[in-house]
């Protein structure tokens, strides 16, 4: 691991100056390919309806589900469409889930005058015991009941259910299954330790000064300024840094210019301007030393709908001078030294969190991997571009490292799939609140959190470090 390797070298810095000082060369990137092409949008037309994306999702996922159903319930299981169902007959149906939630914010209800409703305040979770599941396929829909966990599932999931239709017209579910993991290419064997640093939620422009020192310490560790020789040597093995979204704080999204009168806001500058300048400087320091991939997040100046397009290089005049800076999409997919990375800035996971009973972000991440779809709730509750040809959020293959950014706390787990797939799931915590980043070791596919702290005015011993006994 990073620390052990760092500790191997002798401590030299608590001593008088020596004549020579070691300089380490950054490990060169042996192979890197950016496979985010499906998430890049060219010309965009919003004149389409969103029904197409559901249709194409179902069409694409149907073969996977049919094969899984046959695996689970035997090759003889009958796979039928909803229109072919006979009452009482046990069969399997493949379709898209829709969860009818009374608490789900509905703009139509809000603006409807007859209800006279005040806008609903935002909640952390919109689930309710009265939620109902409906299965839709190409032509029909049917209500589901039975052994199916209504709270956990969310709209947009494509699954296969086994059961029979009752006389009441509802489908009684006995079992259900997901598409499970896609096939995976074997991970490469690397001979030396190489690290990829995952950071998210830098939250610049947020006003809080504590995280700034943490950010500076992070940059210093990666660029090899901080630490003893051993640590610097280990840091030289960091071959890439991925910034997974929310580089700017959500405070920079002040909508004053929209709400306030023009004369009040005429000479004010958007908060994001200062924050972007700060970000530019940080990116300059990083890209002068290590290849960086910058993904936009929920509060960053790019489009709102998924897939988010890369930030524009004109915002970073200093940093774009270096070719090591790469501005990439959200979600982001790449192959770094043979290891396949796939990740998002966290909007997909946090949206599922809102509409599902699952509490742990890592659990939700695993679940999206199992249903073989990055963000099933798009476009229902999460903004999404109206695709019609393909749904790019379906996993074409299983990645080796699957991460999501801006989670409340660090989490990491190795998940094994039915066909011997091995995925490292990483929940990258929000840096502005946790001062923690993640180091992924490409050789061993293990993840180590790395956290930074300064000292504050509080007198409690080591409280800031989290080293309480």
């Amino acid at each position, binding site marked *: *691991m990073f*620390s*052990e390797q760092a*500790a191997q070298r002798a401590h030299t*810095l608590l*001593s*008088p*100056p*020596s004549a020579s*000082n*070691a*300089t*380490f*060369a950054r490990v*060169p990137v042996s192979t890197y390919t950016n496979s985010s092409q499906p998430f890049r949008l060219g*010309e*965009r*037309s919003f004149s389409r309806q969103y029904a197409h994306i559901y249709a194409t999702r179902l069409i694409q996922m149907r073969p996977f589900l049919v094969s899984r159903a046959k695996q689970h319930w035997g090759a003889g299981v009958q796979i039928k469409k909803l229109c072919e169902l006979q009452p009482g007959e046990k069969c399997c149906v493949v379709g898209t889930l829709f969860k009818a939630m009374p608490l789900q914010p509905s703009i139509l209800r809000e603006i409807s005058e007859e209800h006279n409703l005040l806008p609903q305040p935002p909640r952390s979770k919109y689930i309710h015991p009265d939620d109902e599941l409906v299965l839709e396929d190409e032509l029909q829909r049917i209500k589901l009941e039975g052994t199916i966990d209504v709270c956990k599932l969310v709209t947009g999931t494509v699954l296969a259910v086994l059961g029979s239709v009752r006389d009441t017209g509802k489908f009684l579910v006995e079992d259900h299954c997901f598409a499970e993991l896609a096939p995976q290419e074997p991970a490469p064997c690397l001979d030396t330790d190489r690290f990829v640093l995952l950071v998210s939620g830098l939250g610049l422009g947020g006003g809080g000064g504590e995280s700034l*020192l943490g950010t*500076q310490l992070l940059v*210093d*560790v990666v*660029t*090899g*300024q*901080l*630490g003893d020789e*051993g*640590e*610097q040597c*280990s840091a*030289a093995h960091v071959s890439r840094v991925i910034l997974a979204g929310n580089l700017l704080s959500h405070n920079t999204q002040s909508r004053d210019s929209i709400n306030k009168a023009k004369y009040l806001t005429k000479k004010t500058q958007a908060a994001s301007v200062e924050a972007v300048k700060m970000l530019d*400087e940080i990116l300059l*320091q990083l890209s*002068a*030393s*290590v*290849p960086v991939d910058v993904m936009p997040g929920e509060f960053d100046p790019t*489009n709102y709908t998924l897939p988010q397009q890369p930030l524009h*290089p*004109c915002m970073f005049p200093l940093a*774009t*001078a270096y*070719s*090591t800076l790469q501005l990439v999409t959200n979600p982001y997919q790449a192959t770094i030294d043979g290891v396949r990375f796939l990740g998002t800035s966290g909007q997909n996971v946090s949206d599922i969190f809102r509409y599902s009973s699952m509490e742990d972000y890592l659990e939700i991440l695993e679940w999206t991997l199992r249903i073989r779809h990055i963000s099933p709730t798009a476009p229902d509750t999460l903004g999404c571009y109206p695709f019609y040809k393909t749904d790019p959020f379906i996993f074409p293959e299983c990645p080796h490292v699957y991460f999501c950014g801006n989670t409340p706390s660090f989490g*990491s787990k190795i998940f094994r799939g039915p066909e011997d797939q091995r995925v490292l799931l990483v929940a990258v915590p929000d840096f502005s609140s946790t001062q*923690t980043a993640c180091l992924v070791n490409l050789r061993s596919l293990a993840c*180590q*959190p*790395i*956290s*930074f702290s*300064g*000292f*504050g*005015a509080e007198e409690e011993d*080591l409280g*800031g*470090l989290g*080293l309480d006994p």
Partner: protein
Amino acid sequence: MADQLYLENIDEFVTDQNKIVTYKWLSYTLGVHVNQAKQMLYDYVERKRKENSGAQLHVTYLVSGSLIQNGHSCHKVAVVREDKLEAVKSKLAVTASIHVYSIQKAMLKDSGPLFNTDYDILKSNLQNCSKFSAIQCAAAVPRAPAESSSSEKFEQSDLQVSSETQANNELTTNGHSPPTSKQILQQPKGIMGMFASKAASKTQEANKETKTEAKEVSSAGNKAPGKGNVMNNFFGKAAMNKLKVNLDSEQTVKEEKIVEQPPVSVTEPKLAAPTGLKKPSKKAEPVKMQQKEKKRGKRMELSDDETKETESMKKKRRRIKLPESDSSEDEVIPDSPGDYEAESPSPPPPASPPPEPVPKTEPEPPSVKSSNGEKRKRKRVLKSKTFVDEEGCIVTEKVYVSESCTDSEEELKMKTSSVHRPSAMMVKKEPKEERKGPKKGTAALGKANRQVSITGFFQRK
């Protein structure tokens, strides 16, 4: 002995200048490797403490290592005060590194000042931020400027091509600033979209636009040589082309305005007769804009929808003002000192150039300027301007001046220039004319072109 120099330096920084000396600050200031700076700090602390045990030195250390937390082996990096050092060290399972982070005279309550010190020294050394670092990256080479600008152009033209295939008449989601002439095609298309009532197909629109542009080019061509003569002397063809192109783009938007303005500008010459000084200044202005744009090069001018909006707002505002104030828009507002410098050497000394019809450049300069896509803060203020006109008379007049934020500079320069003149002309009795109306400043003074007012005929009470 040379080794001891650093000790004296550190001593001076800490005790005399009362600075917070972090390893990074020391590394940049003395130009040494970061590790060496850390060692120097340590050495200094040891020596100072040995000599004088009561030395008032507070030291912060950087400790890093791993410890088990929540089932993970977590790597911690912390800046700690000296008194907490041992406690932290004992908590860590594996200690990877310890070194001195900073030395300062006063005890620090929190680590904020450390960050500020580092940030300040970093800001002043941004270009070689990894020079003294322990890791050098071979891949991190700055792109050649040609390469980066060409990649930009490529990206823009890429998006341009893709947007042209769009059936509807929308701006691309990422607004693009039009630094290159290629982008001018985009911009009028987008703005035309706001004005055009039909949604013609993109290709037709493009054709229309190129036709209108071709028309404008020729009309601009007629106008431009008029003012181009003087300008050609100073600036090359490239600037002229840019000027033309920018003019075109603005003219597509302001067709109506241009119709309005020629009749206005006809009255102008009568009012403005003697001071043909205005003309070179005015002419210089738009070209200066171009020069600035050229200079800026890749310096991004974000014209996103908002700035376009404010531009159109400004244009709209100007349009409304037109009838009442009868101005041909002479408000070219350079908003950086660079402009002033560029201008002052360029225009010829105030000898009398042939009076020309106060241009038709008048519509152009403000439009040219606003095509920059930059936010200019302008306010119209009634100011009293003193300048020397052709005959050597000092003239004071009150005009509306659009001022930008470099207000004070403008005033200062004006004052100094007006001071010189009176001393030269002391022999004559200078009649001070109070002339209201459309007066342009002398070359030295003509930073902001004045608002021409229809009420200029009449004395302002």
